[in-house]
């Protein structure tokens, strides 16, 4: 073994923690000369973790021979934030604040899956008020729209179709405006809580929703006009990122990837939750097994989501949005103050002035939380990316003992190698975009 060459740009220094080697920078001329000396074309390329078209901090390790990818691997973990571990140090209700940040493009699905697991542990799945379930479905379908819009938009941008990107983010903005109106936040809502919702819909929400549906019905066909039959777009997507049904099943791929292989598997249909069995919608499939098929499925799913949103609006009957159990629900008069911050003055007047018991209960529920009987539960929802499963374990305490998220992005990303090996380098981007991985969900 030869001693490593010391480059001018690479320094070595001693610190209290030990020796630190700085390897930033480097002499590219030397590298190019070394590469020119070797006679084969085989190079290993690191794409990412800071490459703009790898969807966040995903690192692709590609072994390429000329323009052909001979081997592809993923390096993940750059966005690992230890959310699962952190949950074990907060109450069950505080958990929603953490899980909403996992896959940050699908916050309501993370919250809904987590809350369903907690509700299963508590044995209160059947006590969730209808209005809470309708609003949960409504928010999830809005969220499906915004997630698919980002997928289509960034996927288009990576091909150079910047108009698709502009249109996608323009329409996503409409959804985020609704989220802001309803929950107060554009992302990271923590709005769905174990037992129901944090609050009811604000006044004006229904009108805004109707207006939104009307606008989206007008905007959605624009994607067809721009992309669906566009020959350049089709040439880049068709037969790229091929994964057939056998591959999907073996690799556990779900969501649009599985449905692009022709299997109409959708948890909203096969294992309905939150009353999905009562809504009228279709599960689109194609049998092309490629990126173009996944694009078509996402566009069609957005149309179906609009249908469900319309049905939700018609079903919104006045009623509670939290379970009646006062050992789980916070005092019911909880409402935002006039400045949009803090609690409403009426509520504060009530708990501070006239009802000491409500104050005690509120304090105990917020600081201590509620106890969940020991055991484990698995709850799964159909997120825009596939099956989002939550395995929650309780030891009877006020904090989760263990929560594990089976994030669809994490599992789907495994199929990257199967999709890309043997293809062109430029098609890796298309294949990864069609998987729609979000690193916040992959790394958690």
């Amino acid at each position, binding site marked *: 073994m030869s001693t490593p060459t010391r480059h001018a740009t690479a320094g070595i220094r001693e610190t209290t923690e030990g020796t630190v080697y700085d390897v930033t920078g480097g002499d590219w001329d030397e590298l190019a000369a070394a590469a020119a000396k070797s006679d084969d074309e085989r190079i290993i390329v690191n794409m990412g973790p800071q490459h703009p078209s790898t969807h966040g901090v995903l690192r692709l390790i590609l072994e390429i021979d000329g323009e052909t990818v001979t081997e592809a691997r993923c390096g993940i973990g750059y966005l690992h934030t230890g959310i*699962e571990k952190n949950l074990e*140090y907060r109450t069950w209700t505080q958990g929603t604040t953490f899980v909403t940040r996992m896959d940050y493009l699908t916050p309501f699905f993370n919250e809904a899956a987590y809350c369903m697991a907690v509700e299963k542990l508590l*044995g209160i799945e059947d006590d969730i008020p209808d209005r809470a379930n309708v609003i949960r479905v409504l928010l999830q379908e809005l969220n499906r729209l915004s997630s698919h819009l980002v997928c289509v938009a960034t996927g288009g941008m990576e091909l150079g179709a910047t108009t698709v990107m502009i249109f996608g983010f323009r329409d996503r903005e409409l959804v985020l405006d609704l989220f802001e109106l309803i929950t107060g936040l554009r992302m990271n809502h923590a709005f769905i809580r174990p037992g129901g919702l944090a609050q009811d819909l604000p006044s004006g929400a229904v009108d805004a929703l109707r207006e939104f549906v009307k606008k989206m019905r007008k905007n959605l066909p624009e994607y067809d006009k721009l992309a669906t039959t566009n020959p350049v777009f089709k040439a880049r997507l068709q037969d790229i990122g091929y994964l057939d049904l056998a591959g999907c099943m*073996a690799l556990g791929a779900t969501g649009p990837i599985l449905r692009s292989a022709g299997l109409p598997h959708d948890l909203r249909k096969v294992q309905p939750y939150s009353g999905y069995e009562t809504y009228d919608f279709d599960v689109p499939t194609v049998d092309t097994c490629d990126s173009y098929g996944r694009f078509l499925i996402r566009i069609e799913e957005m149309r179906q989501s609009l249908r469900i949103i319309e049905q939700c609006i018609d079903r919104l009957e006045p009623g509670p949005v939290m379970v009646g159990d006062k050992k789980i629900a916070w005092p019911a008069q909880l409402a935002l103050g006039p400045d949009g911050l803090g609690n409403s003055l009426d509520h504060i007047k009530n708990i501070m002035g006239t009802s000491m018991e409500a104050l005690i209960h509120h304090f105990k529920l917020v600081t201590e939380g509620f106890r969940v009987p020991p055991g*484990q*539960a698995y709850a799964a929802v159909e997120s825009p990316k596939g099956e989002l499963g939550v395995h929650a374990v309780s*030891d009877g305490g006020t904090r989760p003992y*263990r929560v594990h998220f*089976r994030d669809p992005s994490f599992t789907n990303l495994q199929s990257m190698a199967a999709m890309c090996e043997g293809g062109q380098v430029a098609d890796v981007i298309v294949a990864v975009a069609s998987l729609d991985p979000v690193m916040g969900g992959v790394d958690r």
Partner: protein
Amino acid sequence: MSEQDRRNDGANPDQELNAENLPGNRGDGGEVIGVRRGMFGAKAGGDTSGFGGLVRTVRLPGGTRRPYGPGPEAGWFDEVADELEGALDEQGLLPENVITKTVVDRGELTFHIEREHLPRVARTLRDDPALRFEYCAGVSAVHFPEDRGRELHAVYHLRSLTHNRLIRLEVTVPDADPHIPSIVEVYPTNDWHEREAYDFFGLIFDGHPALTRIMMPDDWQGFPQRKDYPLGGIPVEYKGAQIPAPDQRRSYS
């Protein structure tokens, strides 16, 4: 003490209560995973509430006797159990040696499997036409440091798309010998999931094609999601007061 009094003092609910009042048809008292003391998490002796002496044993739901259900009648849980036991029998295995316990809790069916038989059970569940659990939702590990000799649990959720069913397999191993056979051969999707369980819990999946860390850096020491691994964090000063790090705050036991 009269018969009526003895009934009301609730000293031994297992014997005193009728079967229909119990939460489930359980064969044993359940697995003890810990003991809780006190109520408000005060450990330095400042608890004047009178609850400081409270001692409670924490048990996970125990084994269930047939019929498994779902519901009070025999249902598809029993069908799956029958088919699995029959298929294991055909392979020359004694079902009671393979399935140590069957738990039905919260409408979910869990088979506790001896670790050496896990790949065979997984393959049977996947391939038998009457079972056909084609899809595995990965492995989730749980660490119970006080469950002596069975500290690490690996939990697999299997879904049958053909029959639209979901079951759970649970494998327990001691901390001193954290080896579980890998089922990547049966369910290739478990490749990354097993790497994740290894990374965070130190479970070693024998036969995995490349069991390396996946989230943490390759040279990381320790297994971060074990219960004895600290969360970390620093105290934060807010309006003149010190707010301790999350794992140093009082926890309500």
